[in-house]
C-alpha cells in the first residue's frame, strides 16, 4: 500500500467489515436470549448451550472448508462458465478470486501483510453462517440432542448455505447468469434456506411432547420469559443493521471494474457489485421493519411474540430487493410477507403437525420465499449484474431479474438446498438413534441433573457453619 488513496480505501474497507462483524455478533446474542426465553425452565441451560456451541463448530468448519466452498462453487460446477476463467469447473485455478487462496492451509488465511480484506470478509460471511444455523436452532428446541444439532449446524452453516451463496450471491454465480437471480440482503440466501432446512429437520424430529392433543389440536407452549424474548429480538434487529452493511461493498470504483475507459465512479455497491447507497438501504430497512411490525400487530391481535417476530419477517421479506426498492414498496412488501408467513405457520402446524417452537420456518423460510418471488415482479427488468446483460438461460452473460427466475431461485433456496438436505441428514441421525433425546428426559427436563446438583450445593452451603 504505497498509494495514499489505495491505502485509505483498503484500510477503510477493512475497518468497515470489522465493525459489521462486531455488530452482527449481537444477532447471536439475541438468538441465545430469544431461545432461552422461549424454552421452558427445565430446558434452559441445555437450550443455551446448544445454540452457543454452534459458534465454535461453525467457525472452525467455516475455516476448514466453508469459505473454500463459497469461492469454488459459483459455476455449479458444470452449469455456467466463470467470467474469470471461462470454465464451468470448480474455480480452483490461479484466478484472482479462486478458492485456491482460501484453502485452510493458504497463507491468506492468516495474518498476511499483503492482504487486509480476507479475514474480515471471511468473518462477515461466518457471521451469516452462524445466523443460518441459529435460525434452525430455535425451531427444534427442547427435544434434539446437542450432538445432532452440532452436525446439522455444520451442514447448514458451513456447507449448504455457502453453496447457495456461491450460486446466488457471488458476483460470478450461475443463478445470476441463468436465472437473473437477485437477493441483495439474503431473503433466500440466508433466510429461506435456513427456514427450509429447519422444516426438513422438524418433519423427522416430530413435535414436543404435549404440543398436540390426542385429537391433533395444537396447544400453545408460549414463551416462558417474554422479556428475554423481547430483548433478544431487539438485539437481532440491531445486529441486522450490521448484516445489511456487511452485504455491501462500502467503496468501489465501478468505472474500471466494468471496463469503462476513462470513467471513475466511486460508490457503495451491493454484494453483486451494482450500485446502491448505505443511505438508501437505511430507508428501506426501517420501512420494511415498520411494515412488518404494523402487519404483525394487526394479524396477531397485539401478541408481542408474533409482533416482534413480524418486524423481523418484514425486513426479511423485503431484503431481496431492498437495494433498489422505494421505502414504501419495502414497507408494503414487508406487510405482505408477514401476513403470508403467519397464515402459513398455523396452516402447516395444523395440517402436518409441525411443531416449530419459535416460528422460525415462518419468519425466515416463508417470508424469505415470498420476498424472492415479489422481488421478481417489482424489480422485473433490472440487470442482475453490472458486468454484461444477456438473456435468460444464456449462461455466458447475466440475465435480467424476472419473476420466473426468482420463483425458481426461491425453490432452490428453500427446497433443494434447504428442506431436502435437512430432511435427509435428520433421517440419517434418527436412524442412528442420535437425533432426539429420550422421552423420559424430555419429560424430566434436560437440565434436571444440573438443577438437582445445584440444589444439593445450595443445601450444603446454607447448612455450613464455616
Amino acid at each position: 500500500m504505497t498509494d495514499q488513496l489505495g491505502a485509505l480505501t483498503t484500510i477503510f474497507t477493512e475497518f468497515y467489515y470489522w465493525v459489521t462483524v462486531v455488530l452482527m455478533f449481537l444477532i447471536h446474542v439475541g438468538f441465545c436470549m430469544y431461545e432461552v426465553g422461549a424454552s421452558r425452565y427445565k430446558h434452559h441451560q441445555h437450550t443455551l448451550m446448544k445454540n452457543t456451541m454452534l459458534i465454535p463448530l461453525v467457525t472452525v468448519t467455516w475455516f476448514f472448508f466453508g469459505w473454500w466452498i463459497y469461492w469454488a462453487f459459483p459455476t455449479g460446477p458444470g452449469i455456467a462458465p466463470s467470467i474469470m476463467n471461462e470454465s464451468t469447473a470448480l474455480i480452483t485455478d490461479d484466478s484472482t478470486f479462486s478458492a485456491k487462496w482460501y484453502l485452510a492451509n493458504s497463507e491468506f488465511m492468516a495474518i498476511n501483510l499483503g492482504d487486509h480484506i480476507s479475514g474480515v470478509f471471511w468473518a462477515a460471511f461466518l457471521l451469516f453462517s452462524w445466523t443460518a444455523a441459529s435460525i434452525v436452532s430455535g425451531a427444534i428446541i427442547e427435544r434434539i440432542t446437542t450432538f445432532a444439532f452440532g452436525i446439522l449446524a455444520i451442514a447448514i452453516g458451513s456447507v449448504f448455505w455457502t453453496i447457495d451463496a456461491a450460486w446466488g450471491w457471488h458476483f460470478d454465480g450461475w443463478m445470476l447468469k441463468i436465472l437473473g437471480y437477485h437477493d441483495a440482503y439474503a431473503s433466500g440466501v440466508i433466510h429461506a434456506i435456513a427456514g427450509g432446512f429447519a422444516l426438513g429437520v422438524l418433519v423427522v424430529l416430530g413435535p414436543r411432547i404435549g404440543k398436540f392433543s390426542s385429537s391433533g389440536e395444537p396447544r400453545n407452549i408460549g414463551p416462558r420469559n417474554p422479556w428475554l424474548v423481547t430483548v433478544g429480538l431487539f438485539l437481532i434487529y440491531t445486529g441486522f443493521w450490521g448484516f445489511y452493511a456487511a452485504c455491501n461493498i462500502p467503496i468501489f470504483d465501478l468505472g474500471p471494474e466494468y471496463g469503462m475507459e476513462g470513467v471513475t465512479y466511486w460508490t457503495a455497491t451491493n454484494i453483486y457489485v451494482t450500485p446502491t447507497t448505505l443511505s438508501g438501504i437505511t430507508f428501506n430497512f426501517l420501512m420494511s421493519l415498520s411494515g412488518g411490525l404494523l402487519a404483525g400487530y394487526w394479524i396477531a391481535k397485539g401478541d408481542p411474540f408474533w409482533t416482534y417476530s413480524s418486524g423481523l419477517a418484514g425486513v426479511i421479506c423485503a431484503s431481496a430487493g431492498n437495494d433498489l426498492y422505494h421505502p414504501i414498496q419495502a414497507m408494503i412488501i414487508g406487510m405482505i410477507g408477514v401476513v403470508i408467513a403467519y397464515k402459513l405457520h398455523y396452516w402447516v402446524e395444523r395440517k402436518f403437525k409441525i411443531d416449530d417452537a419459535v416460528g422460525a420456518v415462518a419468519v425466515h423460510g416463508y417470508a424469505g420465499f415470498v420476498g424472492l418471488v415479489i422481488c421478481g415482479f417489482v424489480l422485473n427488468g433490472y440487470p442482475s449484474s453490472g458486468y454484461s446483460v444477456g438473456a435468460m438461460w444464456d449462461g455466458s452473460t447475466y440475465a435480467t431479474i424476472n419473476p420466473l427466475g426468482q420463483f425458481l431461485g426461491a425453490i432452490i433456496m428453500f427446497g433443494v438446498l434447504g428442506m431436502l438436505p435437512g430432511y435427509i441428514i435428520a433421517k440419517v441421525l434418527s436412524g442412528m438413534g442420535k437425533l432426539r433425546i429420550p422421552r423420559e428426559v424430555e419429560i424430566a427436563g434436560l437440565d434436571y441433573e444440573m438443577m438437582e446438583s445445584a440444589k444439593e450445593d445450595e443445601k450444603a452451603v446454607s447448612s455450613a457453619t464455616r
Partner: protein
Amino acid sequence: MATVTNWIDHLNKPAEEVVGAVYPGAGSTETLLVILGIVIWIGWHVITNKSESDELSRLAKKRHGANDHKSNITDW
C-alpha cells in the same frame, strides 16, 4: 520459527517481499496445523457425543415426572 526478526530490515525489503505471511512457521507448518485442527474438531464431537449419551441414558432411567424439577429450583 520467527518469520520476522527485525521490522526495520523487513520493511526495507522489496515490496513483494514485505507483503506476505508473518505468523510463526509461515510457509512450512500450515498443512500440519490444519490436520491438527481437524483432529481436535472431530475429537470434540466423539468425546462430547459419548458424554451426552451417557448423561441422557442415566437420566432416562430415573423416570422423573414433568414437574419433579420444581423441587430443585434454587433460591440463589
